[in-house]
């Protein structure tokens, strides 16, 4: 896809420069200076990948480790540990723990350092990284040695040897380092045999002349053989050490080895040679400015001069030794003061770290409290919302139920009142009928008794009594009709029709020679409902008219017709009887009653009759009045 390979080359170069830039910039941050912050900020700008970020953090870690900025170092170290843990990169994790341990060891916090080294061991064990594991064990051993706890130092160094299989490439190097540590610890315990045993094991892994890696071991072996009393071997290893360190140009080691050689020659009785070695030792000691070495040199010179009987020179050496001891004492005192100062600063920094941690914890607590308040508020809002909704729903249901109950109660109250009123009216009616009816019946009975009690009663009086009796009977019937109408309230058209039909049927049975017709025109609304008074009056008018026709007309046909027009009902009762002259014939009680009833219902009653032409009675009344 890339047409021109030069573009690819340029791209790779740029990418390489980018990575190189970060490393270069980070390299420039050390040693710490005013420009370090600038280089860090520039390096930070160039972070592109996760790897760049780790490189950057490692650079910061080195910087803070150098400046002994423990709090900042802890922050960076934590970030790196998080990175490595999340990536399950146990090799890097082990290395990170080891780096922290080294920093703590350097600042004299051996306990904390050992704890970090153990974490390093744990991480390394997960991936069987014996190099990292042994490195951590050796560091633990070293810390114990610095504590002067040589037994523990030997124990952890031996652990390296015991737990490492000889299958990985760095095995021999690790064995060399472990045996060196054990040998050094035994040397501190003043056990030359054990010291030499482990140093010899070092040599079994690496031939003495083949490597400069074991120069220190060879130097130490010379001293160990001196302690063991083997002068020739002591000379041999001292010389090997001198040759190696001369090649390496390690002036400190050369100073130590020249002094060791001086000691060996002194024990061997070669005083001149011993003094020459000691003079060389003085030269390299001056170059390294390692004051403590003078103590060994002057002490050895004092012993040599004393053995030679050169007491003046011996005294001079003794004086130098005393001066150097005083000076060393001052140096030691200064060093102790420095150590105390360092410890104080460390303690102070630890206090600061603790304070910062406390502040951080407080801030975390505040944030947590705020979050709890937010979550709590949200939860409370949700609860209140739900509670409001439930209350609203419950209230709505209650309202609906109450509405329905109220409707039922209203309907019930209405019908109950109606029922009670009707019942009360009915009872009063019944009492009225029973009392007045009984009284009227008593009057009729009394009139009858009177009529039969007086045999010689005149006809006029007798007729008068009969009239009163008839009137009273009519009053009873009127009373019954009125009471009924008062209670019944209304009567349907169909009911009235049925009652009229029944009446005409009975009339037909009574007068079999007469044809009866009862016709209802299709225009009549049969669903109409009369008031009971109106219905009763209509019935009584028809009854009276038909009865009159039956009694007086001699008709062969009697018809009753219902019709409706303009919201008015018309009832026509006609016969084909002999008729009468309405001008000459007086209206009897019957006709007067009919007219009175017609007026009561807001209607009119017309009587049309001529002699031999029959009679027609027309009742017309409004449906709604």
């Amino acid at each position: 896809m890339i047409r021109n390979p030069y573009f690819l080359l340029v791209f790779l170069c740029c990418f390489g420069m980018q990575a190189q830039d970060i490393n270069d910039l980070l390299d420039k941050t050390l040693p710490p200076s005013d420009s370090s912050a600038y280089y860090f900020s520039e390096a930070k700008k160039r972070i592109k990948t996760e790897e760049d970020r780790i490189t950057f953090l490692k650079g910061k870690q080195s910087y803070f480790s150098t400046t002994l900025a423990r709090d900042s170092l802890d922050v960076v170290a934590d970030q790196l540990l998080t990175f490595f843990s999340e990536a399950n990169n146990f090799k890097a994790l082990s290395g990170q723990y080891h780096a922290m341990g080294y920093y703590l060891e350097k600042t004299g916090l051996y306990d904390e350092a050992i704890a970090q080294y153990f974490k390093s061991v744990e991480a390394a064990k997960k991936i069987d990284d014996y190099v990292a594991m042994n490195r951590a064990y050796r560091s633990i051993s070293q810390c114990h040695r610095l504590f002067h706890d040589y037994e523990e130092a030997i124990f952890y160094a031996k652990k390296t040897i015991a737990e490492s299989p000889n299958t990985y490439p760095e095995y021999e190097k690790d064995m060399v380092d472990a045996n060196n540590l054990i040998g050094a610890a035994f040397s501190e315990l003043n056990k030359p045999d054990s010291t030499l045993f482990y140093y010899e094991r070092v040599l079994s892994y690496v031939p003495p002349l083949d490597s400069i890696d074991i120069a220190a071991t060879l130097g130490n072996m010379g001293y160990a053989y001196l302690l063991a009393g083997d002068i020739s071997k002591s000379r041999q290893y001292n010389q090997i050490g001198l040759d190696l360190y001369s090649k390496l140009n390690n002036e400190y080691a050369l100073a130590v080895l020249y002094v060791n050689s001086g000691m060996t020659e002194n024990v061997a009785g070669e005083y001149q040679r011993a003094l020459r070695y000691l003079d060389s030792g003085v030269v390299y000691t001056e170059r390294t400015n390692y004051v403590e070495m003078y103590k060994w040199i002057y002490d050895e010179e004092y012993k040599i001069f004393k053995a030679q009987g050169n007491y003046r020179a011996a005294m001079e050496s003794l004086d130098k030794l005393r001066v150097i001891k005083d000076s060393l004492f001052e140096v030691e005192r200064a060093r102790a003061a420095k150590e105390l100062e360092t410890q104080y600063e460390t303690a102070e920094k630890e206090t600061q770290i603790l304070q910062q941690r406390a502040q951080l914890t407080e801030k975390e607590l505040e944030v947590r409290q705020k979050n709890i308040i937010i979550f709590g508020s949200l939860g409370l809002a949700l609860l209140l919302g739900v509670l409001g909704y439930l209350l609203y729903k419950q209230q709505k249901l209650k309202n609906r139920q109450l509405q329905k109950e109220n409707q039922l109660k209203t309907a019930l109250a209405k019908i109950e009142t109606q029922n009670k009123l009707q019942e009360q009216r009915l009872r009063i009616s019944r009492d009225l009928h029973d009392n007045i009816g009984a009284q009227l019946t008593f009057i009729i009975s009394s009139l009858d008794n009177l009529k039969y009690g007086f045999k010689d009663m005149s006809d006029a009086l007798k007729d008068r009594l009969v009239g009163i009796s008839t009137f009273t009977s009519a009053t009873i019937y009127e009373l019954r009709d009125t009471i009924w109408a008062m209670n019944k309230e209304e009567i349907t058209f169909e009911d009235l029709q049925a009652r009229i039909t029944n009446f005409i049927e009975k009339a037909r049975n009574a007068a079999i020679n007469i044809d009866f017709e009862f016709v209802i025109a299709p225009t009549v609304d049969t669903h109409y409902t009369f008031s009971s008074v109106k219905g009763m009056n209509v019935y009584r008018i028809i009854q009276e008219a038909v009865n009159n026709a039956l009694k007086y007309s001699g008709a062969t046909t009697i018809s009753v017709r219902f019709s409706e027009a303009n919201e008015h009902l018309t009832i026509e009762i006609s016969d084909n009887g002999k008729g009468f002259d309405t001008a000459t014939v007086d209206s009897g009680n019957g006709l007067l009653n009919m007219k009175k009833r017609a007026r009561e219902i807001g209607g009119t009653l017309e009587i049309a009759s001529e002699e031999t032409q029959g009679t027609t009675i027309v009742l017309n009344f409004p449906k709604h009045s």
Partner: protein
Amino acid sequence: MVDSFRWISALVIVILVLLWWYFRYHQQRNKRRHSHQCERLQKTLILQRKQIAKRHIALDRYDFLQYNLEDALLVQQEIK
């Protein structure tokens, strides 16, 4: 933080469940009460209607020719 959130969530859920249960219980109780009340009212209403109907049936027995008012005026002693 996560623990607090869990605790608050759990508390809210428990309260929600309790609220739901409480309102459901009250709702059902109200429904039962309403149902009984409606049933009682309906029965009374039906009884009243029956009494009115009975009165009118009796009144319908009144014959215009026989004037049998005693048969038509039926007193219902149970109505006070």
